[in-house]
């Protein structure tokens, strides 16, 4: 599921790239064979997803950052430093093995954990907002730990 999502975002980024090319070159004769960009626009959402990693994952009922999560957030902090004009939202999500309201609090706890780590790594708090969707924004659907582990995350997205 996750691969599928990233694929969709990449296609969206390519389309956005095409549109920009037309605007920049003023191409009006429309051959329909515009030059494909070589990758996502630097500093864009697609760039974050493809080259940095937009999300970190959590263990069951946990909000502690794993070493993998910290490695991803380190890269996000570097990326934010490279593109100082970018503002982001960090959304905390949960698997569906908790109650609605508890998970809403747990998602906020996860978003705050990622936010606080990025702050400690130098990202200005004014560039980041947080939100919790509880269990209402599952990346993957179905049951079983393979699915649930993908849905316990904090997702950084460009605003």
């Amino acid at each position, binding site marked *: 599921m996750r691969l599928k999502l990233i694929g969709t975002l990449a296609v969206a980024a390519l389309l956005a790239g095409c549109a920009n090319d037309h605007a920049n070159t003023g191409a009006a004769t429309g051959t329909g064979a515009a030059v494909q960009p070589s990758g996502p626009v630097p500093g864009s959402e697609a760039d974050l997803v493809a080259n940095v990693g937009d999300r970190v994952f959590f263990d069951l009922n946990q909000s502690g950052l794993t070493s993998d999560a910290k490695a991803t957030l380190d890269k996000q902090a570097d990326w934010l430093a490279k593109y100082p004009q970018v503002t982001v939202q960090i959304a905390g999500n949960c698997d569906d093995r908790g*109650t609605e309201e508890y998970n809403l609090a747990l998602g906020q706890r996860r978003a*705050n954990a990622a936010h606080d780590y990025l702050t400690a790594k130098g990202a200005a708090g004014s560039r980041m907002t947080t939100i919790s969707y509880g269990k209402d924004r599952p990346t993957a659907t179905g049951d079983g730990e393979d699915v649930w582990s993908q849905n316990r995350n904090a997702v950084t997205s460009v605003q």
Partner: protein
Amino acid sequence: MGSTRDTYLSGRQLNALNEIFGAPGLGRRSLLGGGAVLGAGLAGGMIVTPSGAQAADAPAAEITVDQARTAPIPIVIPSFGPGVGEQITGVLTDDLSNTGLFKVIPSSANSGTPDFAPYKAMGARAAVTGTASGSGTVRVEFRLWDVLTGQQIQGTAYTTSAANWRRIAHIIGDVIYQRMLGEKGYFDTRIGLISRSGSIHAPRMRLAVMDQDGANYRVLSSSQTKLPSFNPVRDQIAFLSYATAVPRIYIFDLATGRQHILGDFNGVPLGPHYSPDGGTIIVPVARGSGSELYSVNIASGAKRQLTSSGGAINVSPSFSPDGSQIVFNSDRGGSPALYIMSASGGAARRLSYGSGNYGDSVWSPRGDLIGFTRIAGGQFSLGVMNPDGTGERIMTQGYTVESPTFCPNGRVLAFCRRTGGENGSARIHTIDITGFHEHAIATPEGASSPTWSPLNV
């Protein structure tokens, strides 16, 4: 909201209510003795006939709810006539049957004094006669008879706009419920909920309300909403809105269609939870790693912090009916469990000790039980326990069964049942507190987060 509001008002008003038929030998009486309340707070077009005090000589119900659970009460319900009469009979029959406490026997004799001999032979305990006449304005007459004594127990007539026929049916059902079982019914009530539509990966979640049987379903908000809570005394629903970047608590007034913000919090508010008198809302406010409970006086806006647990999550607060205590859900002990504390906050006592995680604490309006969700082994269970933590009993289980809410008399819980998977559904079900008679309420879209209204007034 203009057109919705108009529809709503005309749907709620019972223009001109009730005359009382004196039952021979039983004196004037009406279970709508509280009928005067009908006019309270609703202006215009409302004619209320005070129906006199409830008869002091009203006999106590001979059948208890517990008796009826093991042996449903056979009751004869005839068609109230063609058209709206037939519709009223259908709704009344569904109301009574869905409780599991009544066994409805159809009949064709809908007026005059019934011939009781065949009813006795069938084992019927009670019989109803009734008629509905008129088109624009409908007059519904209803009598309840004791089959064993042949006496009329109740007689009432309702004159109302035909659009209100469903409500008349529910009110008659509540009269029968109370006469036969000795406690108030809950058919003339509504359930607030979240309507779910669109992709399961980012569903559209809007505030909605419906009658307790799923009729008159109506979406109230266009923006994202979560965790609604019905005011126990007023026609209002509080909810969490995601319309703005930072979620906020709104109070929606069902009579006017207007809504207002409950104020700002130093952190992110979660779900609102009303006190029994409707004057206070408790809100968990997330900040840092935890969420603490705050009580908000709705009139003054004054806030008071009730918990201070150093980064733990505290959610799902629910008052005892007398307003003196609060049960809530906290992970202060390591994993989510149920706790009880004074309504003024302070020290809390742990209530749940079973394996797995507990949540969704909700105190019955009767005071005798606390409903909850328990999650263990990847499965959800819906249960009740005594307020001292003893007597835990699981009523139903599933992939997800959550968000229990009691009906006003505490005999039935509504909850959300969800299935997993890409095409997973979310539906509101009801279940008797004994764990029997679970059934789904049909809704046009997915439905979650039920919150039961008080008895309609």
